[in-house]
């Protein structure tokens, strides 16, 4: 009962927000403000209620299942229902808190924006879809939420669609995740038909032969890679930075990317070793590559985007190494601190009016609150004690160290290296944002999509409060699981991370005006371009597909339409011949009639 309320409330908020908060005349500024206020209420209140109810579920902590109805499909039936399990409740709590923070934050971030009502409504819908994924008792119900999230990410990433690049990024996000979703859907089919039921509890309990499982989980993995931005399908995530910053926080922390990892954790017992090995290899490549790419980015949000890919790969690696609980733990802490980082980055961008790191600098004094909260976020990202990331990373590393996976060495080595690179890129972004000399003079009027012009003040309270509140879990969440703490891997990770931090700090100290990314030397350009994966895809996939599309268009134009137009033209041409008979001379017509009668008469005589 409560669980359905949790899922339905944000959905109702989305519907109300879309229907009731349209401004009456559009051009009237006072009407717009009133509409935005209404939309803000419809966005914040249901999400807050939903988060509160989730908190109650956490406190109550009793697994339960609610089945609304069973849809008889003629084949395998679909159970429309919600299931409360420990993993679901934990993830839902994360989703609720982050979504609430994002909703409150966007009230300030999108102030005066004419399309704010639809924006907040889509955030609510997004939240609702993610909660549906989290609580789904049936794979098909899960898939419904999964797809709605794809739609919402498209709508929200393309919120400022006036700019061509933004709408392209939205389409890219949609298409790339869709590519994975096809695999995901077929994975569900294979599982469902092998188990004879789409109910997750039945599927988990079913006795499915290993080859079928390998096939099904590999197909599922395609969808997971798409949603969680793992290596072959990760390219949409950095481009999705075109969306407003609160959306980045939502996508990167609570919804969307978390969904992939969540699904693997939820169906974990189904994953056989070969699939886990594939996941592990993907994760090992992804975490290091994305961390290196993050180090060379010049756009603050892209730094965080690559960092997300890298951290998600951490979770994937933990799953591949058999440490499911560590992965979930890291999912939750990462959700908290990455949302915090994005919200802080949003405040910085809002303040500076530019995404680029070399436009920033010296913001420590101008924005003390943002500075301190973001420092907490970075500390958690690097894994410095006592921030939450320290504990979860320790759990992951401990799991990988103890793993009996055949690729344990690769996973562990890659994870440890990534810890160092993470320290380096986080420090670089931190130093370039908050230290050094301020470079901002009043920028020209910004293009839509980059918030406001520099005005030398801290962000509004609606933005600062969510940041402050999220800083608390980012800092302290680690202690909830501190009983599982292991000293040796923690010290190793800390040393490696501090090495990375110190290295960048020394380089930066040498000449604070210059970008520490020069450290990479000739390797910098490949890193900045994320190892040319986008260009590779453009050459191997995009261009042939575009050529094919053009061919299809031409065929349609010239062959299909040509046939239609040709038949018309042929008719006109033929009629040009016969119309000469219609010359208006009645005597000619009568001659024709007579000739016809004669022909018929002769024919009747001869043949009859």
């Amino acid at each position, binding site marked *: 009962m409560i669980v359905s309320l949790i899922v339905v409330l944000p959905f109702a908020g989305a519907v109300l927000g879309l229907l009731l908060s349209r401004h009456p005349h559009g051009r009237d500024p006072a009407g717009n403000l009133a509409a935005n206020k209404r939309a803000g209420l419809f966005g914040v209140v249901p999400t807050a209620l939903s988060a509160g109810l989730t908190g109650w579920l956490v406190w109550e902590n009793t697994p339960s299942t609610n089945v609304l109805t069973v849809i008889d499909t003629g084949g395998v039936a679909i159970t429309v229902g919600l299931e409360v399990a420990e993993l679901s409740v934990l993830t839902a709590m994360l989703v609720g808190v982050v979504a609430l923070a994002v909703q409150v934050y966007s009230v300030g971030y999108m102030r005066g924006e004419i399309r704010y009502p639809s924006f907040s409504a889509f955030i609510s819908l997004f939240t609702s879809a993610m909660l549906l994924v989290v609580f789904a008792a049936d794979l098909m119900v899960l898939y419904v939420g999964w797809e709605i999230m794809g739609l919402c990410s498209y709508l929200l990433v393309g919120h400022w669609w006036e700019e061509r690049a933004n709408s392209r990024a939205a389409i890219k996000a949609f298409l790339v995740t869709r590519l994975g979703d096809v695999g995901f859907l077929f994975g569900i089919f294979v599982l469902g038909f092998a188990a004879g039921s789409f109910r997750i509890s039945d599927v988990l309990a079913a006795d499915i032969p290993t080859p079928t499982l390998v096939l099904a989980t590999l197909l599922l993995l395609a969808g997971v890679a798409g949603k969680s931005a793992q290596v072959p399908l990760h390219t949409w995530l950095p481009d999705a930075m075109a969306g407003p910053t609160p959306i980045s926080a939502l996508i990167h922390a609570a919804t969307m990317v978390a969904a992939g990892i969540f699904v693997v954790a939820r169906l974990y017992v189904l994953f056989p070793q070969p699939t886990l090995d594939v996941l592990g290899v993907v994760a090992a490549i992804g975490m290091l590559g994305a961390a290196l790419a993050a180090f060379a980015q010049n756009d603050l949000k892209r730094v965080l985007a690559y960092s997300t890919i890298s951290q998600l790969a951490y979770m994937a690696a933990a799953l591949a190494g058999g440490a499911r609980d560590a992965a979930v733990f890291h999912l939750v802490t990462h959700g908290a601190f990455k949302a915090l980082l994005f919200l802080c980055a949003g405040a910085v961008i809002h303040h500076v009016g530019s995404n680029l790191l070399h436009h920033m600098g010296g913001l420590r004094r101008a924005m003390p609150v943002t500075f301190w909260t973001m420092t907490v976020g970075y500390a958690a990202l690097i894994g410095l004690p006592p921030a939450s990331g320290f504990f979860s990373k320790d759990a992951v590393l401990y799991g990988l160290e103890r793993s009996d996976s055949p690729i344990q060495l690769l996973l562990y080595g890659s994870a440890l290296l990534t810890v160092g690179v993470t320290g380096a890129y986080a420090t670089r972004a931190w130093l370039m944002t908050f230290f050094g000399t301020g470079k901002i003079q009043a920028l020209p009027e910004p293009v839509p999509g980059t918030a406001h012009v520099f005005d030398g003040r801290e962000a509004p309270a609606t933005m600062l409060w969510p940041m402050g509140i999220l800083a608390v879990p980012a800092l302290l969440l680690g202690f909830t699981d501190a009983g599982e703490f292991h000293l040796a891997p923690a010290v190793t990770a800390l040393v490696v991370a501090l090495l990375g931090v110190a290295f960048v700090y020394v380089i930066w100290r040498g000449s604070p005006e210059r970008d520490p990314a020069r450290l990479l030397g000739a390797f910098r350009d490949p890193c900045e371009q994320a190892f040319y994966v986008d260009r590779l895809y453009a050459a191997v996939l995009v261009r042939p597909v575009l050529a094919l599309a053009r061919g299809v268009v031409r065929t349609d134009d010239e062959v299909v339409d040509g046939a239609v137009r040709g038949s018309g033209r042929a008719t006109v041409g033929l009629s040009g011949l016969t119309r000469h008979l*219609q010359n208006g001379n009645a005597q000619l017509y009568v001659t024709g009639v007579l000739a016809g009668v004669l022909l018929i008469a002769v024919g009747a005589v001869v043949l009859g």
Partner: protein
Amino acid sequence: MHVVYPAVVAALLFSIGVYGVLARRNTILVLMSVELMLNAVNLNLIAFDVWLRDALHSGQVLTLFVIVIAAAEVGIGLAIVLAVFRTRRAIELDRLRDLGEP
């Protein structure tokens, strides 16, 4: 009298009528040719009525009908010709081709 004679005369009359309808340009002459064709038919009707010794003389009755209808037709036809002449100052058939394709 053998039935061939009136039949041949009727055929000749009919052919002259057909020729007139198809070849003459003057509308009045075309109307006259139509009359010729009708009269050829009348001749046939009477000849065969006699030759077949029809008790009811349906051939002769039909001939009377045809004569009446021909009179009416010629009346209407001449009225049309008059109207066309008044509006167009011409009654040549080949100049009345407004219905033709341009």
